């Protein structure tokens, strides 16, 4: 499918639509994708309906390459499993698939991210005396640490894009080597288990990527926002030297697929 920029003017789209579409474009045809609930489901399904028909989706709860008739609202949902290639459980998905090395791409979310792509979904403040407790890690760090590429989908707020996260739930590019705890490059911590890492962060305002040192830079800015807008909603000084331009907006075909086929009940896209 060729993206058709000229169709843009003819319709409107929401920030959520653009997030879903931008995420979908990170999928390469044939990718084995490990996906959580929500927007990531829209992204992988949209990719399968457009440029990546041979991409495959693994849901942590046990379904492998399902072909849902109706959009699942949880990875544990029976909807995930319809016409799946294999139905299994967590040992299979987390060890038999993920640890085994099949997973090319992961879509994940987080409450906080820092300039090295470290993500926090555990606590705000000191872990032993926190200001706020979040959901906890779930499989976020496992999937991130073993997929070849990870894409985080985030809300663009100053308090969420931080110089340094309060707690490293999921590993970015500069992480701690235990037991000592010194900060080193991800490659050094993972050694022979290194397969890749955080490739992109997609927010409601922009797409970010990481340089050779593992530092986040601004890649594209969504239509309607400026580089200054993004910097104003980012808690650390952003490298804007590599900005490529505007994020490609959704096409009419993509919007139609999202609203009329993938989320026709209006669950994530009301």
């Amino acid at each position, binding site marked *: 499918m060729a993206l058709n920029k000229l169709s843009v003017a003819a319709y409107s789209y929401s920030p959520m639509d653009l997030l879903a579409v931008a995420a979908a474009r990170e999928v390469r045809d044939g990718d084995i994708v490990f996906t959580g*609930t*929500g927007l990531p489901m829209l992204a992988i399904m949209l990719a399968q309906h457009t440029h990546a028909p041979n991409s495959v989706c693994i*849901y*942590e*709860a046990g*379904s492998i390459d399902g072909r849902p*008739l*109706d959009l699942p*609202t*949880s990875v*544990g*949902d*029976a*909807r995930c*499993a*319809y016409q799946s290639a294999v*139905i299994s*459980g*967590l*040992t299979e998905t*987390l*060890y038999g698939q*993920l*640890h085994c090395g099949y997973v090319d791409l992961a879509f994940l979310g987080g409450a906080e991210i820092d300039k090295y792509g470290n993500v926090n979904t*555990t606590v705000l403040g000191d*872990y032993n005396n*926190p*200001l706020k*407790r*979040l*959901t*906890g*890690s*779930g*499989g*976020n*760090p*496992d999937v991130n*640490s*073993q997929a070849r590429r990870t894409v985080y989908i985030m809300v663009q707020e100053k308090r969420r894009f931080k110089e340094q996260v309060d*707690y490293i*739930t*999921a*590993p970015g590019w500069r*992480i*701690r*080597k*235990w037991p000592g*705890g010194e900060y080193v490059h*991800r490659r050094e911590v*993972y*050694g*022979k*288990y290194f397969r890749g890492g955080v490739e992109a962060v997609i927010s409601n305002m922009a797409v970010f990527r990481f340089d050779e040192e593992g530092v986040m830079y601004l890649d594209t800015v969504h239509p309607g926002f400026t580089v200054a807008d993004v910097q104003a909603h980012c808690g650390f000084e952003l490298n804007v030297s590599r900005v490529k331009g505007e994020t490609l907006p959704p096409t009419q075909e993509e919007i139609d697929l999202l609203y009329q086929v993938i*989320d*026709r*009940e*209006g*669950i994530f896209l*009301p």
Partner: protein
Amino acid sequence: MGKPQNITLKEAAGLIQDGQQITFGGFTIWRRPMAFVYELIRQGKRNLHLLEVNGGTHSEILIGAGCVSIWESCWSGHELYGKLGEMVADRHVNGGMIVEDYSHGHMVARILAGAYGLPFFPSAQSLGTDLLNPEFDSLGRAGLRDGSHPKIPRKKYEFAPDPFYDRGELLLLPAANPDWAIFYASQVGEEGTVRVNVQTYADSEVIKAADKVIVLAEEIVPESYLRLEPEKNIAAGYAINYLIKLPWAAHPTGSQGFYDVDADFIRTFYRASKSQETFDRWADEWIFDIPDHERYLQKLGIGRLENIRANPVLGYSTRQKRGTR
């Protein structure tokens, strides 16, 4: 070992002793033995050590009711119907419960080691994270890793070298062998063969890892029926100690093939869970003022149950309105 013993919900909950380590089958808001959780609360259990692969609505209710003094897991919440685990969060921020955080892959490794009778399971997952920060070892900080607590390992994890292929260090995660697994099953045969529908989560491992297993069965069916397709079963009757037949026992969590998640019920609970006061009122209404599971179902009412009843071909409800269109 033999077949499981038939028992009532009250009797089964009565077997759990204050201070014991328990775990549950299911996944987040799916196939949780909710009726059992309610009964534990009615019986006023205290100081339970809840170790589970992941948390969910059941954990929030049990913790909110003050039954749990140690929680080891990786996640608590209600998926789309209430993202935060407010009760875990409250205890972590305000005290009253030890929270020990692992990753999902680590918890699966722990239960799998327990299931296989191994002391540990190796993993290269979640290296470099604060899950491994020695300062954040909550059970260690509480002085409980001195070897005198048989269900608490001496260390939160260990690094191990690779003596074979020079791949470097990876983690060893300590086995988990809870005193009890409480488990909700889709179908159980007359002799105790267990089937769960669709995704199997960590269910087969949870059954094996625990010292004793209580199963709440949505329905009891002929053994010969389950044995026609043994590929779909996860445990033989000898792996189960006690059996309770209890339809709708997983409500408000979902049971594939029988009923969907009761989204409104969980949303209402989630709102109530935002303060202890509203939690307590909710618990009075839905737990303490209700003597048993039958009355609970009566209170829910047939309309609500029919709304979430699964389409038998698809395994999920096609009646419950899920979105805006």
